[in-house]
């Protein structure tokens, strides 16, 4: 489902980072661990096509995304991938419902109110459906971000430090929900984090060395 081979990335004026080859089966979850600066986010962005790799192949769902054109990559991302970021980065001008509908709208998939309700219900947010983003608590906002990441039923979900900003109670809840929702959707979950609290939950772990 996710496979990388001899991928390298060099920031301007810095030494190239060489990433170890790996392969994840469909529905398999994986933790990317490492100190800050070790390239966790870089690898995650390369996998998600947010950053173009300079070398090697990245196969996701039988597609080598390094070969896709810019707009084809955008399209691929919308259809097959979901993202959860550290700061939840919801669209502030929109309501919770509109934030969720943005996913199918931008991916050019049919927009379904039922699917939105289903996902919000699953994440315990149905009563916040028409709330403004700034009215949400941190934990709620992160759950909305998860809801938005899964609403298009992606094949792979990438999460970058999804729990670092949360307290223990919210961390527990958010990570449990993330894992169980990913499993229900049969999606592969890749989490980049230095949050020790997640280590016990995802057994497949890759440590990046700076």
């Amino acid at each position, binding site marked *: 489902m996710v496979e990388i081979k001899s991928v390298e990335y060099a920031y301007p004026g810095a030494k190239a980072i060489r990433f170890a080859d790996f392969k994840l089966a469909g529905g398999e979850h994986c933790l990317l661990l490492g100190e800050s600066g070790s390239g966790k*986010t*870089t690898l995650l*962005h390369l996998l*998600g096509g*947010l*950053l173009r790799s300079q070398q090697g192949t990245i196969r996701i769902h039988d597609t080598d995304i390094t070969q896709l054109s*810019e*707009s084809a990559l*955008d*399209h691929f*991302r*919308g*259809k097959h991938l979901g*993202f959860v*970021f550290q700061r939840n*980065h*919801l*669209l*502030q*001008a*929109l309501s919770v419902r*509109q934030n969720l*509908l*943005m*996913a199918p*709208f*931008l*991916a*050019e998939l049919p*927009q379904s109110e039922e699917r939105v309700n289903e996902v919000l219900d699953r994440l315990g947010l149905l009563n916040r459906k028409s709330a403004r983003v700034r009215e949400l608590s941190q934990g709620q906002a992160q759950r909305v971000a998860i809801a*938005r990441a899964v609403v298009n039923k992606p094949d792979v979900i990438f999460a*970058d430090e999804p729990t670092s900003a949360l307290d223990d109670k919210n961390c527990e809840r958010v990570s449990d929900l993330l894992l169980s929702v990913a499993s229900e959707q049969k999606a592969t979950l890749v989490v980049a984090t230095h949050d020790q609290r997640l280590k016990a939950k995802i057994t497949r772990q890759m440590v990046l060395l700076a």
Partner: protein
Amino acid sequence: MMNLITLVWSYLKAKPLNTFLNVLLLGLGIAVITVLLVFNQQFQEKIKDNVRGIDLVVGAKGSPLQLILCSIFHVDFPTGNIKLNEAEQLAKNRLVKSVIPLALGDSYQGYRIVGTNRAYTDLYEADLQEGKWWEKDMEVVAGANVAAFARVKVGDRLVSQHGLGADGHAHDQEPMVCTGVLKKTNSVIDNLLFTNVGTVWAVHEEHEEDEHEHDEQPVQHPSPIVPTVNAGDSVKEITSLLVEFRNPMAAIQLPRYINAQTNMQAASPAFETARLFSILGVGADVLMGFAYVLIFISALSIFLALYNSLKERQYDLAIMRSMGASRSRLFVTMLAEGIAMTLMGSVLGLAMGHGVLVLFTWWVKEGSQTGFTAYVFYTSELWILAGSLLLGIVCSLVPAVQAYRTDIHKVLAG
């Protein structure tokens, strides 16, 4: 459903004050332009309409503009009188095709009474609404607005005043009789009353009647201009003569001849109205300049609003990319936001402009009398809409390019 419109609208709504001010500022500029446009257009149309087939106005020496304003638009006082026999001489000139006499000086409730003949009303294709045309002296026909606003009906007996004001000296003569009312023509004749030249003479000669007895003699050789008197009468006077040329040569020769060889002056309606436009045009230009300044400031303000919002929007833009939006889609979204603001501004401006004209025609009596209407749309207003589209694109082009260039990795990793 999410679509481009709900997305753009949500972002505009998220900053209501900002959006409102930008739209209002642009709207004010567009409103001023709309008012000027509609006003100017109708004003020019009215003037062209009122000049009709009149090539030249001949009257007493004085201001040519005053002569035109008085004899064609009926908004100024006469420059004086001309002798009927001199007018007859002119009518015989080979360059003149036809003439229409005007005898002014009296009014009824502020509406001017015009002593003339049927050729004048025919010029404006006037039709009777009711009653019949005037024939004898002391019979009058009222224009549509006179009937409507001064409540003149067929059979009414009217006592005229001297001058144009409603408080002018009232003639204590035998009243005139209204024999007919005209249909509305939306031209200057709606505000006039028509009668024979003889009526105007009769009203004014009253005072002199005591001094010398009128010797009622039958008319031997009727004057070609006023058939009720003898040709060559050296006492009778009229205010002015509307002249139609026989050929284009007349436009060059006739005015020169009249101004140099006679005691009368010739004024060209085309030339004098053009002069009037250029005088009024200065004021319109100042207003127009003011409107353009408003529009320029609002365009700058819309640009700044979009440009400044980019910094806080860069996360939103990057997130939208992560959800599958292409670069060009962000570009279009940004453009759409600018266009939405300028389009709302120009629609608001057109509405305000026409609103002001509606109020104008309601409140100002002269507005409705001159046939001004706020309910017309000119193709130039479509140009305003098209121009605002262009303005929106210009304002949002730089922010849209910035949005297009957003480095999502940098923003999201930051």
